[in-house]
């Protein structure tokens, strides 16, 4: 009897080990599953995406889905970190593709670069910098997403705020809310100080646009950093302070791909997606995810189908 009990214990443990190792081998990424075709000749690709921004998720999903549809095995690597992490990941090959924003990426690689409101200018400056690291910059889309400083309509009327310059005199008594990397970003705190002479009294780190909007609503912050495509700006009646001194530059959404995997087929597929994106339609897609809580993958799929890409 005792021997039987022990062998039951032993067998359970063995089964456990087998189960655990079998599961562990598939543990690391969100595997999307190949679209049925043999992935023998085509490489596996990893698309990097930030979980904190629906826009990022939607565009990354589009990239992933068109590639999958063409027979590639695609996985998405999701986290809440920022460029300081995803860039090295791209460099080292942990991810192969990610959606980027022209001016922000340019200034990240070269803080002294002369970014401007002209997408072509920014792309021309960015291309060689990326090439040095073995990365290719594909064709920018028409969709732009810039940093936008917003405030509530109450505060805007109280302090007479309609442009970012208007903040200069009152900022020391106000609280800014934005992503944790804001204090180190040239288009956020650093740029506000340099270009506008604006220094806020306090800063609250908020890890997503929705949290920024929520904090604006509750009065915990006075001015928030949102992205210009954020649907809450109009949904919550915020006032977008005009960038009158032109701090923000052209931030077109563009795929960045590792040179090793950048075949003409991959480039064509991704450029095909970029060609369909505009600031307006991407804002609409984001609204579906952020306000209606639809799944980014589903929203991306519908859009691609409507545009004949799937």
């Amino acid at each position, binding site marked *: 009897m005792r021997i039987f009990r022990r062998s039951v214990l032993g067998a359970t443990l063995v089964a456990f080990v087998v189960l655990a190792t079998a599961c*562990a081998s598939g543990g690391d990424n969100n595997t999307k599953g190949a679209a049925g075709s043999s992935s023998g000749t085509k490489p596996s690709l990893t698309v990097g995406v930030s*979980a904190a921004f629906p826009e990022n998720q939607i565009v990354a999903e589009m990239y992933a889905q068109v590639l999958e549809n063409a027979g590639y095995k695609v996985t998405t690597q999701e986290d809440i970190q920022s460029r300081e992490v995803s860039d090295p990941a791209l460099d080292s090959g942990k991810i192969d593709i990610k959606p980027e924003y022209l001016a922000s990426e340019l200034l990240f690689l070269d803080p002294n670069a002369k970014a401007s409101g002209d997408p072509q200018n920014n792309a021309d400056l960015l291309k060689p910098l990326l090439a040095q690291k073995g990365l290719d910059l594909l064709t920018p889309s028409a969709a732009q997403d810039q940093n936008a400083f917003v405030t509530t309509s109450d505060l805007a009327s109280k302090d007479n705020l309609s442009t970012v310059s208007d903040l200069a005199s009152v900022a020391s008594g106000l609280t800014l809310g934005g992503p944790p990397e804001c204090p180190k970003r040239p288009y956020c705190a650093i740029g506000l100080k340099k270009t506008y002479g604006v220094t806020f009294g306090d800063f609250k780190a908020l890890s997503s646009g929705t949290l920024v909007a929520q904090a604006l609503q509750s009065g915990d912050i006075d001015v928030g950093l949102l992205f210009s495509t954020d649907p809450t700006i109009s949904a919550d*009646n915020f006032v977008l302070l005009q960038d009158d001194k032109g701090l923000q530059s052209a931030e077109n959404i563009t795929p960045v791909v590792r040179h090793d995997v950048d075949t003409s087929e991959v480039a064509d597929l991704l450029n095909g997606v970029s060609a369909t994106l505009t600031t307006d339609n991407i804002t609409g897609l984001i609204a579906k995810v952020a306000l209606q809580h639809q799944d980014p993958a589903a929203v991306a799929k519908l859009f691609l189908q409507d545009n004949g890409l799937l």
Partner: protein
Amino acid sequence: MTVAQGSFQQPLILWSWIGDNRAEILHRVIEHVELTAIAVFLGLLISFPLAIYAYRHRRAYGPIAVITGILYTIPSLALFAFLVAYTGLTVTTAEIGLVSYTLLILIRNIVAGLDAVPAEARESATGMGYSRRQLLWRIEIPLALPVIIAGIRIATVTTIGLVTVTAIIGKGGLGHFILEGLLQAFPTAAILGAVLSIVLAVVVDALLLFSERALTPWARARSRA
């Protein structure tokens, strides 16, 4: 001040969302169970030999308890964040952290369980000519099983809670929904993640209790006598 305009006007639980996302929910439950199972199993794999060594060589118990105690005391967010700098955003990082938290509880309970084996049982076994190894595997460990499994239960429930924190480094199991709920100001996701996590803990705890009863029928028989 009236909050909840525009984007925040929503019911506490959006049942349609739960229905629409059944596949993802299942995927995350499985991820959660996997992460927990691997952690507890690896924890046992490491703890067992260490505990038996400490049981036999008392002087080793002190240092082992201190080291595993320190590992247990390190806050989980801190440990995961620290490991990310070395092993990146991987399952490995999550597991190193999760396993570390199981060691103290498991080692402590294994040693305590072995300690609690009555002297008479040991004496009669040695009297019958059992070798040290036979004594350990046929007498001591089976008799220590209730306390050992009690430790496994605590370690497992603790791990299930900690897995949610790994959402910060891209894993998370059900913690993924909690993080999503927080970032998107979407209560349904957060509540779903938290509730399912609790249910999972309760169910797994009950299963382990049941298996303890199944594996140690003599414990109940004796208490009835």
